[in-house]
């Protein structure tokens, strides 16, 4: 990585981000996220937030009263889901070639999980993400970006909680269990 010294990221033995592509500078990426959030609010009059889209998805198949809420009726977040998938696809295609991959970086080099265990690992992590983000009423986008930018108490509490448990989990995983 020739330019890593100038960036905030230390050199890394194995960038898996799209064929060893170096990440954008954090200030450019942060400004881009702000621009997208503000445009969505100014033109679309919608508040950025991804995890409620999971409820919109559930509202398509579940009759549970919780998924019948008015908030979920327009399904605009499912359009966002499609856009996010396309954005990842576009990034991958324009970085070289899109290819199906099982490479999960550090998880592979440190934990050596077989295919079945890896699927279970990601499913359980996803399960906690689903329950947790919906219980907290938001994720990194809705609380981390939008809610914190509006100084919302629920967002500060959630961000504090998920950063603390994430830091604890990662330290336990990579410094105690699989150093």
């Amino acid at each position, binding site marked *: 990585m020739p330019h890593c010294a100038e960036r905030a990221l230390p050199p890394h033995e194995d960038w898996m981000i799209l064929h060893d592509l170096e990440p954008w500078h*954090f200030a450019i990426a942060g400004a881009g*996220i*702000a621009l997208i959030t503000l445009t969505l609010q100014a033109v679309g009059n919608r508040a950025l937030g991804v995890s409620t889209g999971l409820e919109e998805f559930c509202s398509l198949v579940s009759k549970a009263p919780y998924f019948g809420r008015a908030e979920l009726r327009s399904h605009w977040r499912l*359009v966002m889901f499609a856009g996010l998938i396309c954005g990842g696809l576009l990034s991958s295609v324009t970085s070289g070639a899109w290819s199906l991959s099982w490479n999960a970086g550090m998880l592979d080099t440190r934990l050596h999980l077989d295919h079945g265990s890896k699927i279970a690992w990601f499913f359980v992590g996803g399960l906690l993400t689903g*329950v947790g983000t*919906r219980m907290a009423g938001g994720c990194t986008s809705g609380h981390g970006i939008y809610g914190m930018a509006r100084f919302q108490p629920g967002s500060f509490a959630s961000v504090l909680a998920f950063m603390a448990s994430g830091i604890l989990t990662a330290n336990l995983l990579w410094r105690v269990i699989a150093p």
Partner: protein
Amino acid sequence: MALVFVLSVAFGFLLSRSGAADFDVIQQMFLFESPHMYGLLAVGVGLTAPGLWLLGRYGRTLTGQPIQLSAKPLHGGSLPGGLLFGVGWAMTGMCPGPILVTLGEGKAFALAALAGAIAGTWLFGANYVRIQRVLKLPNLTTGTGAG
């Protein structure tokens, strides 16, 4: 809806290229091995904050409607939900947006995370009334909040 789609493609592209959808970058954030993600969040929040304030104060949409800003009040689910999500984020290296972005990039394990996230959301929603009593969540028609 076209606007939502175009902005989301840009958002997905940005999450992919900024490293926010990369397993190792997320672990480096949680391990304090790199300030990259903290810088990204700080710049993102720092620029969004005055922008949203100005929009709320003076802004109108193209059709002249007042801008509707979303509120995130504190409730019984804010802390326990955040704690559960943090474990999930560290395990998968993906928060909800990046699960979809990573899927688009062709990393097949994201499909397992997406299935888990949908299952978790269903589990939460289907048992809302029971969980609501224990955690003192907002009433069912309000929900825990959009985000």
